[in-house]
């Protein structure tokens, strides 16, 4: 038992470090990608190809003045970014990062918690995410921050519905809420995206909205709201908000890869004559490659599309995404019945 806890702790801290490093370098990649899309080079001064830029940014954030508005609610003001960061990091626990490793007859699953309601867990955590932003915006005692927070909360709640509805059709096909089962069913090239392209499209759109990313970045809409919910934040508290956004992006790419792109499965994985442990390691890197590509899609869309207007955003969410998701469920149900 003690050994079990030790293994899980090591795995959990490994994944924690991984998400932090990935989030750190996402900021650099984001700026690089933005640069290349705009015929520029992006940051390339700090180290070769700008590789030390995230470190420089981090150090800068730490040394910035820690400013707190006089009228702010001190406790909630600190709670906001901490909650956002905590929740962003919690989600990765349920994602299967690779197949089982077998060492000395003992099985080591590359998943922190194989809970049988993995999807529900992820959605529960994601929906708490709105509190971090809401609390931060409220505690700042600033009209722009409050407006940004209100926008964020209504937007996230609206798109959560369509997101969960899109997943229901996947769950109907799989018959399980466990992420591990869902991945195991997509063995080889039998990925869910071939059966549920509409669900994937809805999920992707809602993931943009959930992560507050362009074209749905209205909560921090600079042209109207200064900085949105983090207007009053500075130093590492601001850093936490920005950082959490990139962790969320990483995690939602991981969830998408798991649900629709077969997780750690890859075509012709049965043809490879390697030990199961090597296969699990390859699987991990395959999953990582999928996450990278999906992360690139996030950035690609951000630097392509202009921001939605608020009424368009709500119309798309309630009149477009939700009916489409329900229709998708009905069609999936009919197909399952006929089979």
């Amino acid at each position, binding site marked *: 038992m003690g050994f079990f806890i030790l293994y899980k702790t090591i795995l959990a801290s490994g994944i924690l470090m991984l998400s932090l490093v990935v989030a750190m370098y996402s900021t650099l990649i984001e700026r690089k990608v933005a*640069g*290349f*899309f705009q015929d*520029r*080079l992006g940051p390339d001064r700090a180290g070769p190809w700008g590789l030390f830029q995230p470190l420089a940014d981090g150090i800068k954030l730490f040394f910035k003045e820690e400013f707190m508005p006089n009228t702010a609610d001190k406790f909630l003001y600190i709670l906001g970014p901490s909650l956002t960061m905590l929740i962003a990091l919690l989600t990765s626990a349920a994602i299967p990062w690779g197949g089982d490793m077998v060492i000395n007859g003992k099985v080591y699953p590359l998943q922190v918690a194989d809970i049988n309601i993995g999807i529900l867990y992820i959605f529960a955590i994601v929906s708490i995410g709105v509190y971090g932003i809401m609390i931060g915006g409220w505690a700042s005692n600033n009209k722009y921050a409050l407006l940004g927070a209100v926008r964020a909360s209504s937007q996230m709640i609206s798109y959560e519905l369509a997101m969960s509805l899109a997943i229901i059709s996947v769950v109907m096909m799989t018959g399980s809420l466990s992420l591990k089962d869902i991945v195991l069913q997509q063995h080889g090239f039998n990925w869910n995206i071939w059966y549920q392209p509409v669900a994937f499209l809805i999920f992707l759109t809602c993931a943009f909205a959930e992560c507050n990313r362009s074209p749905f970045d209205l909560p921090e809409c600079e042209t109207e709201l200064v900085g949105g919910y983090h207007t009053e934040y500075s130093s590492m508290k601001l850093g936490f908000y920005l950082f959490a956004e990139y962790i969320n992006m990483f995690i939602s790419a991981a969830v998408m890869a798991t649900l629709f792109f077969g997780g750690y499965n890859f075509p012709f994985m049965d043809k490879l004559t390697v030990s199961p442990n090597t296969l699990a390691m390859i699987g991990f890197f395959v999953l990582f490659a999928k996450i990278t590509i999906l992360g690139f899609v996030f950035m690609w*869309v951000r630097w*392509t*599309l202009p921001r939605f207007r608020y009424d368009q955003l709500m119309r798309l969410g309630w009149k477009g995404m939700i009916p489409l998701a329900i229709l998708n469920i009905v069609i999936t149900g009919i197909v399952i019945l006929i089979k």
Partner: protein
Amino acid sequence: MQLTSNRSKLVSNKKMNFWELIYLPAILNGMRITFSHLFRKKATIRYPEKTREFAEIYRGQHVLKRDDEGRERCTACGLCAVACPAEAITMVAEERKPGEEPLYREEKYASLYEINMLRCIFCGLCEEACPKEAIFLTKRIVASDYERDGFIFGKEKLLEPLDPDKRIDVSRRQTNAVIEFKKDKTKKHNR
């Protein structure tokens, strides 16, 4: 009302068709366009390592010329200051004392000559106004600074060095006719 330019467009409030309503074709087209930009030639010039090519007649930081014998050409007539549209030039004139002939070409010289580089618009009118060919704009870039004081360039920064090898070439700023004329050493102007 008839607009003078023919660029006005009629606004149409037509309903979007199905493909426009679901956004997807337009989004995919946009993404195709941005993706193609990934492989374009980048406009960035990595500045300290590479400098961009300047125009032949680029107008940068000024130089106060000396003549071939190393005497300051400026006679402090003040025409440049009058010509300057930004009023960036200040000068104080002084009479040349006996024994200072190797220093100053004319009988009057500028004891103080300042250009405020923050005011200067690098139009080149000072150069055009100068009857003594004393001031020219060069290809050099005015260095950045943290303080405003640093941008008021006095004679110590504007005068070209005495060393003949370190003279600043301004031939690009002169027309061929002028260069030809300067070869004629019988004229007092060129001596």
